[in-house]
C-alpha cells in the first residue's frame, strides 16, 4: 500500500523541480523529513536539482524567526531569579529559607512552570487574562464560556474558590499569584535577552504573519502529516493559506475521521471542517477497516519476556518483510532487552530513540564522585574521605578499567576504618585520572569542573585504548554536554549554590537526560519510539508494551493551571493528550497489513500492567476474523542440576592433611572450632581447612560481631594478665572496678583493633559499642567478686596436645582458654562468649554411664556447640596440665547478669567424662583421616543456613 509520504512525492510534477528549492516542506518530526527526502530522491533518480528545505515544524519556526530555542537549563536558571523575586526579603534582607525552595528543589517545579508558559504562548493565550489574581480570574466565567461544558467547569471552579478558603485552596491561590508575577516579569525580561523558549517563537511568528511584518525565506510552504495543532500553528497555517503560498497535506483514515466517538479523530475532524479539500488543501484518506489486516494481540511476561516474543516474531520474517517493518516501543526501557533479543536474520537495524542516561556507568560514576566529594570531613591536608564512598568510586567499572592501579588502592583501603586521609590516597604516581577523582574540591564551580575533567580524562583514555563501545561513547558525550551546560549556568547565575544543591541538581539533570540515538538509514528494521512514527507507514508493525500507562502514557500532564481554567483558555488537557496518543496509535495501523501488539501480562506494583485500552477498541472496531490473541509463555521447567558434592580423599588431599599430624615441629594443630566444623559437616571442614576457601570479607566500617568478640577477649586478658599467678581477692576486684583499668583496657583493645590512634576518633555506633563493651566487662568482673578469692592460673592460655589415631600417627590439638582459675581445689575453666550460647545442661545428678551419652551428644548435635568447646578445653587441661577436678563454664555476655553457666551445673566433670571425650574425639579424627571416607555434605540442611559454602552446595 502506498504510504502517505509517497502520496505527496507522487504528486510533484517533474516540472516543479526547478523551483523546488524555493519551497519548504514541513513535517511534524525530523524522522519524517528524512523519509520524505529519501522518497524524493527515489522518485527522480535521474535528475539533478536543488532540493527544497525539508524541515520539522520546530526547525521551520526557528528558520522563519531567525531565532533559536534556548536550552532548558538556561531558561530554568533565569526563571529561578524571577521566581525568587516573588519572595520578598524580610527587613534584614533575608529570604525565608523555609519557604523559598533551593534551586535543586525548584528544578522540577520550574520545569512545570516553563511548560505551562510555553503552552500559554503556543496557544496564543491572553496571558494578562490568565495570569492574574484568582479573585480577578473570577470574571472569566462571563468571558470564556463557549460551551456548556466549559461554563460548567468554570462555575465549579469559581464556587470552589469563592468558598471559605481551605488549607489547600489558600495555599493554591498564594502560589498562583507568585506564578502569575513570575510569568510577567520573566516574560518581560526574556524579551530583551537571547533567551527564548519555543512557545515564544511560535507566538512571534504567528503574530508577525498576521501583521504582515515578516518575510518568509520561502516562496511556498507545504505542511504535511499534522494532527493536533496548537493555536499558533493554526494561525501560521491559516495565514499562509490565505496568502496563497501554502499547501497542506492531511493524513487521515475514515475510521477515525468519520466516526465521532473515535478520540483519535478529535483533531482531524476539526481540521477537516476548518480546511476542507481545495487545490491547496489535500486530504489523503485511507480506509483501514475495508482492508484485510492481520492483527495479533500477544501477551508476554514483563520486559525481557516481551522482548523474547518479539525476537521470535522477527525470526519468522523474510528480509523483505523486515525491510518494511516498524518496531515501535511504547516504553523506551525495552530498548536493551530488544536489542539483545534480535535474531540472527537481522543484520541491519536503525534505532531512533531517546534512551535514559541513568542506564550508563557514566551516570553512576558521576553520582559516586559527588557522593565522595560531599561526604568528607576535615580540611586541607587533613581532609578525610568516607571509606565507603571512596570504595564506591574506585570500584566504578569505568575507573577500574581506566586506572590499572585502582585495585591495589582498594586493597589498601583499610577495612575497618570509616575515614581515610585523602592525602594517603593520592600519591606521586597516582596518574591523572586518580588525581582528578580523588582530589578534594570545596567550591561548587571547582566541583563541576572536576567532574567534567574526570569524565573527559576517562573518556579519552578508554577511547585511545579502544575500549569503548559506540553506545557508551554516546552516553559519555551526552553526559558531558549536560554537565558543561550546567557548569555554564552555575557560573552565570548561581555561584552561591551549596555543594549539596549542586549535587542534587546534577543528578536530577542527568536522571532526566535522554540520549538520542538517531540512525539514518531507511533500510532494514526500524526501531523507534511512538512519536517517531508520525507520517511514516510500515507494512508490518510490531508494538511492544501495549499496556495502560505506557500506551498511552499515563496522565503526565503536570501543569499548575487548573483543569477548568485550561478548558476555558483552550489549553490542552489530558483528554487532548489521550486523543493525540490515540491518533498516533491508529495512524501506525492505518496502512499496515500485519500488526502484532505485544503487552505485558503482569501487573506491576504501581498498578500499571493492565492491557492497553486500544486492544479493547480494536476488538470493537475490527471484525473478529482479523484479530487473534495468544500468550507466549516459557515452559516452567527448571533445568535442575545435580547439587551433590563429594570429595574423595585423594592422595593429594591426604598429603595436605599430613600437616595436622605430628611429624616434625611444623605440625599445624586442630582447634575445637575446626573439629566442630568437621562434626557439623565434613565438607565444610574440607572447604575451610583443606582448600582454605575463606569467607567473603564484609565491607563494614562498624565493628562487626566478630570484632566485638575479639575486643572483649582482648580486654579481659589485658585486665587479668597482671594478676596471673596471684590469688585474686574481692579487694583486688573492687580495686579494679574502682580504677580506670577496665575502660583503659577496652580503649586500648579497640585502638589496636581498629588501628586507630585514639578511641576519641570513634564514630556513630562504635561509640555505643565502646560503652557497651566497657559495661559488659565491668559487670562480668563485678560478678567475679562472688568467686573470689581464687588463684588465677591464666588468661588466654594456649594449650596443645597430641592424640594418637589409627595408623599410629598423632594429631595435634590446640585450644586457647580464656580464663582458668583455681578455687577450693577445683580448676575453673571459663570461656567468654559474645555470640549465641548453645549449651545443654545435664541434670545435676547423673550416673557415670549417662556421661557417655551426654558427651556423645556434643559430637552429634550443633546445639551442644558451646559445651563441646568447654569439654575440649577441660580435656586439654586435664591432659596437659594436671589431672585435677575441673569445672567448665561459659560466660554468655548476652546474659551477663545470669553469670557463668556451668556445664555440669555446679559439679565438677568426672574424669570419665574426659576419657569418653577423648574416645569420641579419636573416633572423629579416625574418620577424618580415613581415606575411604570422602568429605560429604551434611544431611541436615538446617546446618547449612549460615554456612559460607551454601552457594556451592546449592543449599
Amino acid at each position, binding site marked *: 500500500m502506498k504510504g502517505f509520504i509517497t502520496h505527496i512525492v507522487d504528486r510533484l510534477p517533474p516540472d516543479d523541480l526547478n523551483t523546488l528549492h524555493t519551497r519548504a516542506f514541513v513535517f511534524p518530526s525530523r524522522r519524517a523529513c528524512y523519509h520524505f*527526502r529519501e522518497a524524493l*530522491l527515489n522518485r527522480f*533518480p535521474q535528475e539533478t*536539482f536543488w*532540493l527544497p528545505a525539508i524541515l520539522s515544524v520546530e526547525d521551520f519556526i526557528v528558520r522563519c524567526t531567525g531565532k533559536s530555542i534556548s536550552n532548558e537549563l538556561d531558561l530554568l536558571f533565569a526563571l529561578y531569579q524571577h521566581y525568587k523575586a516573588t519572595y520578598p526579603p524580610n527587613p534584614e534582607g533575608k529570604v525565608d529559607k523555609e519557604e523559598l525552595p533551593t534551586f535543586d*528543589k525548584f528544578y522540577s517545579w520550574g520545569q*512545570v512552570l516553563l511548560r505551562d508558559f510555553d503552552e500559554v504562548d503556543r496557544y496564543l493565550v491572553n496571558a494578562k487574562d490568565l495570569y492574574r489574581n484568582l479573585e480577578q480570574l473570577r470574571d472569566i466565567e462571563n468571558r470564556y464560556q463557549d460551551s456548556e461544558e466549559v461554563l460548567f467547569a468554570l462555575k465549579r471552579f469559581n*464556587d470552589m474558590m469563592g*468558598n471559605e478558603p*481551605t488549607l*489547600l*485552596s489558600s495555599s493554591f491561590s498564594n502560589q498562583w499569584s507568585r506564578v502569575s508575577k513570575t510569568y510577567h516579569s520573566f516574560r518581560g525580561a526574556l524579551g530583551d535577552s537571547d533567551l527564548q523558549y519555543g512557545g515564544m517563537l511560535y507566538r512571534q511568528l504567528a503574530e508577525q504573519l498576521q501583521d504582515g511584518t515578516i518575510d518568509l525565506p520561502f516562496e511556498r510552504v507545504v505542511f504535511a502529516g499534522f494532527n493536533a495543532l496548537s493555536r499558533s500553528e493554526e494561525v501560521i497555517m491559516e495565514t499562509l493559506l490565505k496568502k496563497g503560498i501554502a499547501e497542506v497535506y492531511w493524513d487521515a483514515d475514515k475510521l477515525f475521521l468519520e466516526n465521532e466517538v473515535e478520540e483519535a479523530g478529535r483533531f482531524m475532524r476539526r481540521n477537516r471542517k476548518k480546511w476542507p479539500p481545495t487545490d491547496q488543501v489535500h486530504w489523503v484518506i485511507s480506509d483501514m477497516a475495508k482492508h484485510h489486516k492481520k492483527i495479533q494481540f500477544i501477551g508476554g*511476561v*514483563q520486559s*525481557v519476556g516481551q522482548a523474547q516474543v518479539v525476537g*521470535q516474531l522477527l*525470526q519468522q520474517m523474510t528480509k523483505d518483510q523486515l525491510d518494511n517493518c516498524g518496531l515501535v516501543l511504547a516504553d523506551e526501557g525495552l530498548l*536493551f*532487552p530488544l536489542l*539483545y533479543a*534480535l535474531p540472527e536474520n537481522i543484520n541491519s537495524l536503525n534505532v531512533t530513540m531517546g534512551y535514559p542516561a*541513568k*542506564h550508563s556507568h557514566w*551516570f*553512576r560514576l558521576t553520582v559516586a564522585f559527588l557522593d565522595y566529594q560531599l561526604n568528607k570531613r576535615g580540611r586541607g591536608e587533613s581532609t578525610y574521605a568516607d571509606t565507603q564512598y571512596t570504595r564506591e568510586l574506585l570500584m566504578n*567499572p*569505568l575507573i*577500574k578499567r581506566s586506572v590499572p592501579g585502582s585495585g591495589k588502592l582498594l586493597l589498601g583501603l583499610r577495612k575497618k576504618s570509616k575515614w581515610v586521609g585523602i592525602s594517603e590516597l593520592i600519591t606521586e604516581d597516582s596518574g591523572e585520572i586518580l588525581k582528578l577523582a580523588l582530589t578534594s574540591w570545596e567550591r561548587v564551580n571547582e566541583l563541576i569542573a572536576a567532574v567534567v575533567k574526570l569524565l*573527559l580524562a576517562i573518556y579519552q583514555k578508554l577511547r585511545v585504548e579502544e575500549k569503548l563501545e559506540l553506545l557508551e561513547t554516546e552516553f*559519555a558525550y*551526552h553526559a558531558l554536554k549536560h554537565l558543561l551546560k550546567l557548569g555554564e549556568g552555575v557560573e552565570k547565575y548561581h555561584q552561591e549554590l551549596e555543594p549539596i544543591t549542586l549535587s542534587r541538581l546534577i543528578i536530577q539533570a542527568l536522571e532526566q537526560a535522554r540520549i538520542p540515538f*538517531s540512525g*539514518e538509514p531507511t533500510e532494514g528494521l526500524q526501531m523507534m519510539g511512538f512519536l517517531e512514527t508520525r507520517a511514516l507507514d510500515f507494512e508490518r508493525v510490531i508494538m511492544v508494551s501495549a499496556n495502560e500507562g505506557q500506551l*498511552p502514557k499515563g*496522565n503526565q500532564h503536570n501543569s499548575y493551571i*487548573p483543569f477548568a481554567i485550561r478548558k476555558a483558555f483552550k489549553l490542552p*488537557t489530558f483528554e487532548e493528550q*489521550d486523543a493525540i496518543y490515540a491518533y498516533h496509535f491508529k495512524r501506525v495501523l492505518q496502512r499496515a497489513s500485519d500488526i502484532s501488539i505485544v503487552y505485558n501480562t503482569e*501487573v506491576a506494583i*504501581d*498498578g500499571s500492567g*493492565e492491557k492497553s485500552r486500544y486492544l479493547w477498541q480494536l476488538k470493537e472496531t475490527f471484525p473478529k476474523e482479523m484479530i487473534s*490473541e*495468544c*500468550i*507466549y509463555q516459557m515452559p516452567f521447567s527448571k533445568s535442575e*542440576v545435580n547439587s551433590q*558434592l563429594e*570429595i574423595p580423599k585423594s592422595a593429594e588431599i591426604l598429603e595436605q592433611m599430613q600437616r595436622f599430624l605430628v611429624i616434625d615441629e611444623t605440625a599445624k594443630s586442630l582447634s575445637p572450632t575446626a573439629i566442630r566444623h568437621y562434626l557439623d559437616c565434613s565438607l565444610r571442614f574440607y572447604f575451610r581447612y583443606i*582448600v582454605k576457601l575463606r569467607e567473603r570479607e564484609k565491607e563494614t566500617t*562498624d565493628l562487626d560481631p566478630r570484632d566485638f568478640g575479639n575486643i572483649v577477649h582482648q580486654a579481659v586478658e589485658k585486665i587479668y594478665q597482671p594478676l596471673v599467678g596471684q590469688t585474686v581477692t574481692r579487694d583486688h576486684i573492687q580495686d579494679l572496678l574502682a580504677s580506670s583499668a577496665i575502660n583503659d583496657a577496652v580503649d586500648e583493645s579497640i585502638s589496636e583493633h581498629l588501628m586507630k590512634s585514639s578511641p576519641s576518633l570513634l*564514630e*556513630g555506633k562504635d561509640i*555505643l559499642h565502646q560503652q*557497651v563493651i566497657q*559495661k559488659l566487662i565491668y559487670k562480668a568482673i563485678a560478678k567475679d567478686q562472688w568467686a573470689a578469692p581464687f588463684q588465677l592460673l591464666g588468661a588466654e592460655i594456649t594449650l596443645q596436645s597430641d592424640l594418637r589415631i589409627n595408623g599410629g600417627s598423632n594429631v595435634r590439638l590446640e585450644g586457647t582458654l580464656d580464663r582458668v582459675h583455681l578455687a577450693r581445689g577445683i580448676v575453673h575453666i571459663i570461656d567468654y562468649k559474645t555470640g549465641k550460647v548453645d549449651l545443654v545442661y545435664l541434670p545435676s545428678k547423673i550416673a557415670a554411664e549417662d556421661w557417655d551419652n551426654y558427651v556423645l551428644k556434643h559430637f552429634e548435635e550443633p546445639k551442644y556447640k558451646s559445651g563441646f568447646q568447654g569439654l575440649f578445653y577441660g580435656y586439654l587441661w586435664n591432659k596437659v596440665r594436671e589431672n585435677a577436678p575441673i569445672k567448665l563454664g561459659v560466660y554468655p555476655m*548476652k*546474659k551477663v*547478669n545470669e553469670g557463668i553457666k556451668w556445664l555440669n551445673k555446679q559439679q565438677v566433670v568426672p574424669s570419665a567424662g574426659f576419657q569418653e571425650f577423648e574416645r569420641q574425639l579419636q573416633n572423629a579424627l579416625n574418620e577424618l583421616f580415613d581415606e575411604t571416607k570422602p568429605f560429604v555434605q551434611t544431611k541436615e540442611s538446617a546446618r547449612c543456613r549460615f554456612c559460607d559454602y551454601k552457594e*556451592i552446595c546449592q543449599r
Partner: protein
Amino acid sequence: MNQLHLFEDPEAINTKNFTIYRASAGSGKTFTLVKEYLKIVLRNPSDYQHILAITFTNKATEEMKRRILEHLIDLSAGKSTDMRHVIEKEVRHYEQKLNIQDRAKKALTNILHNYSRFSISTIDHFFSQLVRALARELKLSLNYQIDVDDDTAMKESLLLLYQNLTHDEELRGWAKDFAFSKIDNDKGWQLDYTLLEFGKELFKEKFHQGFSKISREEVNIKSLRELEQDLQNTEREFASYLKELAGQAKKLIAAHGLSKENFKGKSNGVANTFDKILFNNFKLTDTFKNVAQGTADWYTQKSPDIARIDGVVKAGLGKIALEIYQYHAAHHAAYVTAKQLQRHIYSYGLLDAISEQLKTYRQSNNLMLLSHNSFLLREIISDHEAPFLFEKLGSYYQHVLIDEFQDTSVYQWENVKPLITNSLDHNHHVLLVGDVKQSIYRWRGGDLNLLLNQAVDDLSLYRDQLQVESLQINRRSAGQVVAFNNQFFTLASQLLLATKDLPDDSTMLSEVYREVEQEPGSSSNGGVCIKFFERNEGQWRNEALKFSTSVIREHVVETGNYSDFLVLCDTNLEVSEVSQHLSTLGIPVDSEQALSLSSYWAVRLLVSGMYLLVDARDSLARAEMACLYQKGVQAEDLDFNELFMESCSVGSGLLEKYLPAALVEQWDELSSRNIYEWASQVIPLLIESKKADPFLTRFLDVCLEQNAKGKTTARDFINWWEVHKEQQMVVFPSHQEAVRVMTIHKAKGLESPIVLIPWADFELKPRKDNLFWTDELSAQFSKYKLLPLSFSSELMDSYFSSAYQQELLEGLTEGLNTVYVAFTRARQRLYVNSIKPTRSIAADDLAHLYKLLWEICNHPGWESCWDAQSSTFIKGDLSESVPKTKQEIVPTIAVDQMRMAPYANKVTIRSENSKMFTLLDNYHARNIREGLQVHAVLERMSQRSDLETVLNQLTAEGVVKKEDHDGVRGKVEGLFDQPDFSAFFQPGWKVFSEMDIASMGRRYTPDRVITNQQRTIVVDYKREKENPEHGKQIKGYAAMLEKMGYRQVEMFLVYVGEAKIVQV
C-alpha cells in the same frame, strides 16, 4: 451533558442512593459491584466519568474493569445473560423506556474512547494520584519516585541515625541507656533489630494517629527520661518493700522453727509466697489473699503443726501477711504498669529521631513511600475539600463505590469521606461493599469497625438515604460446605465469647458473625473433612502432611488435575515447608518458594560472577562459579578437589580452566557493561542450551529494573540483591497444572475446588508480645497520647487492662476471620488437619484453633459426622466428582528459545561523538573545534554584519563556547578581509547556503553557491589540510550545477584553518 437525565425515572430518584452491602464469602460481591456500576451507566451512559470505584488490589481493579467491559459488550450485543436478567428485574419500573442494548453500546463506546476517565483503581493508586496532583501544595518535589520498599527506607534511616550519635549528645545518651537497659535485662545489647522492628511502626496509621498529636515540647527525650526514672522508682519501691516484708516473714517462720513445708500447700503453698516475692514474682495466689485477710487458715485441719503456726501468725506473721496483701492491692497495678511501660520506652524515645531521618532519606533520594500517602493527605484534606480535589484531578466524581470496605483504614476513610459526603449532598450514588468477617488486615490499618458501625455513624446526616443490604446466597461453595460453615462459625463466635479476659461488652464478635448464615446457591453437595492427629511431640505435622498428600495423590490418579487444589497455611515458613515437601514428591507446586529466583542454580552462577566482578580476588566466588558451571554442563569425572584448590591458588579473576573459553576471553571487556548488558552477554556464554528459561528471563528483568534506577554496577546490584532476593519470584505460567500453596492472607479473594489446610493449629489470639498502641491513658500519661505495649496477659493487672481486653477482642475476631477466609475458599471440598487435644478443654480457653475445632466437631447434633475411632469428622460427600471450571482460554504459545546475542554489529546509529572534540580541551581538539565553529558560523552568515548575531545564536545552542568567540571572530574577520572571500557575500547575488542538490538519486551539500545569472560561484569550506580529493569533490558540484543550467561556474575551496582561499 446533553443526555443528562434524559430517561430520568422519578422512582429512581426516590430510591435510596446510599447503599451498604454486607457480602459474605462467595455471595457474588464482584457481581453485585459490577451490576451496580452497570446500572448507573445504563441510566446515563456518560456517567461513567463521574464514578470512582475503589478496589483493594491491582488484580481486583483489573478484573472489575474487565468484567464491566465484557458485560457491556454482551449487553450491547443483545446477549441474554444472567447479568442482563438481574438488571432487567431490578430496573423493571422503567423498563418501558429503557433500551438496555443501545445504552450499553453507548456506554461501552464512551468508556473505550475516553478511557482515562474510567476511574477504577486501588486506594493506594488513587491516593498516589492525589498526592501527585497536590505535590506543590504539599511542598513535595514534583519528580519524586514512588517507592514501596519500607524495609530499606528503615534500614537507611537507622544508619543515618547511628551517624548522628557522633554529634548529638542527648541522642547518644539515650541510645547508651537503651543498650545498658538491655544489658541489665539480659537482652543482649544490640539495638538494630529492636529498632528495625519498632521503626516499622512509623509506617503504621495507628501510631501516626497519636504521633501527629504529640507536642514535641512535652514529649521528648528529656521528658521521657524523667518518665523512665519515675517508672523505675515505682517498680523498685514496690519490689523492695514487699521483699522486705517477705524477708521478715521468712525470718519469723524460721525463728519459730518452721519452714514453708509446714504450711498449707507445703512447698507450693501459702508460705511459698514469701520465697516467690524474694524471687521477684509478685503474683499473689487467691489462697494467700484469703489467708492474709483472715478468711482462711494458714494450715489444713489435719496439720500437726496448728498450734505452732498459730503462734507464729500471732507473733507477727499475720500482720505481715495482711500488710503484704494490702500494699499489694494498692500498688500492684502501678507496679505492673511501670514494668510494662518500660519495655518499649527507649525505642519509643528514638522514634521521633528515626522519623526525622526517614524524612532525610526520602528527600535525598527523592522518594515517596506509598505507605506515606494517606498520612500526607490526612494532614491537608479537610471536610469540604472535594471540589478542590476534583479540580486538581480534572475529574468530577459523583458516584463513589468502595469494595472490600472492611479493610479500609481510618485515614483512608477520612481521606475519601469528603468525596462521599459531596456525593450524598448531591444525591448521587454511594456504595460500600464488604464483609466484616473477612477483615484480616488489621496489621496494616484495616478497621472493621468502619463497616460495622462507624461509617454509618459518621454519615448519620444521610441516614434517610441509606439502605443496608445483605447478600445471602453463597454461589461459590457446595451445599454441605456452606452448611458446615454456617454452623461452625455461628458456634465458634458464641463459644469464643467465653474466652478468658475478654471485655464484658464483647458484642463485636457476635455482631461480626451475626449474619454468617448463608443459603447455598450451588447444586452440588460437596463435603468437609476434619481430621485430628495425636500431637506426638510435633510428629503430627508429618502425619498430617502425609494425609494431605495422599488426598492430592488419590484425586490426581482419578482426574489428573493438580490445579484443583489450594493448600492454605498460616505462615510463609509453613508455605515453604509444604511446598518443599510436595516438590520432593514430584508434585508440581505453584508457590512463592517454588518460584524463587535465588535458589536457582543458574541465577546463583550469575550472582557469583557479579561477586567476582566486584572483587577479582574473591576466591569463594571463583569457586562457586566454576563449580556451578561444571555442574551445569554435567561434567562427569571431574576432579572437584583440583577445581577448589585452584580457585584458591589463582590470585585473581576467573578460574579459566573450568569455564568456557569465550567467557574467559571476553571477561575483562564485559566488565565495563552495565549490569543488564553484562548479564545479557554472559548468559549465552555460560549457558549453552538456548532453552527458554523463565528464571533467567525474570532475573534479567530484575537486572533491568535496577539499571533503570541508575544502579548500573555489579556492586550496586549485589547490595540490592542480598537484601531483596527472597522476594524475587518468577511468574507462574497460567496454563501449567500445579497445586497452589499459599498463606491464608494471600488467598483472600481466591477460590478452589478443593482446599487443604494441612496444619490448622494456630492461635486465634494475638501473638504474645505483639506490639500494640493504646490511647487509653490515665492523666499521668495523657500527654503521650499513645503508648506502646506488648500483648501479654500481665497487662490485666495494670492500668491498661481494658486496652488489653480490647486488643484481645479485636485480635480474636481477626483470628476467627482468618479461619473464615480459609474455610470459605473451598468450592467443593474442604480438608482440615488438626491436633487432638490431650487434656480436656476449658471453656474459657478455646482461642486455639485445634481446641475450637475439636470442641465444635464434638458438638451435640453432629454425632453422625463424627468417627471417634479415627478422630475424623466428615460431613457431606467427599467422593462427588469435582465439576470442571470453565476458563476463558487464550491460546498459549511456547517461547521456543532464548535469544540473546550482542547487537553491536547490527545497529547503526548516527553518532554525535565526533562533536566530542567540541568538549575537549587540548591543542589538537581546540584546532578541530575552532574549525567546526568557524564552519558553523559561516554556514549561517549571509553577510558580514551578521557575525555577532550568529555567534550569539550558536552560543545559545551550545555549538560555540563563549570563550571561543574571539578566536572564531578573528578567523572569520580574517577571511572577510580578503577581497576574494567577501566576494562570496556580495549583495545582489542569489545565495544557496547549505542547500542540498539531488543528483542521480543522491544528495550533495556544497557549502555555499551564489549566482547572478551570468556567473556562479561554488565554495566549500574545509577544516582539513589541502587534499586533491577536495578538488574532485568541488568539481563534482560544479558539474551538477552546470547540469542544472548554471553558466560559468567558478570553484573555490576555503581552508578556514589557514584562512586560505584556493580557486580550482
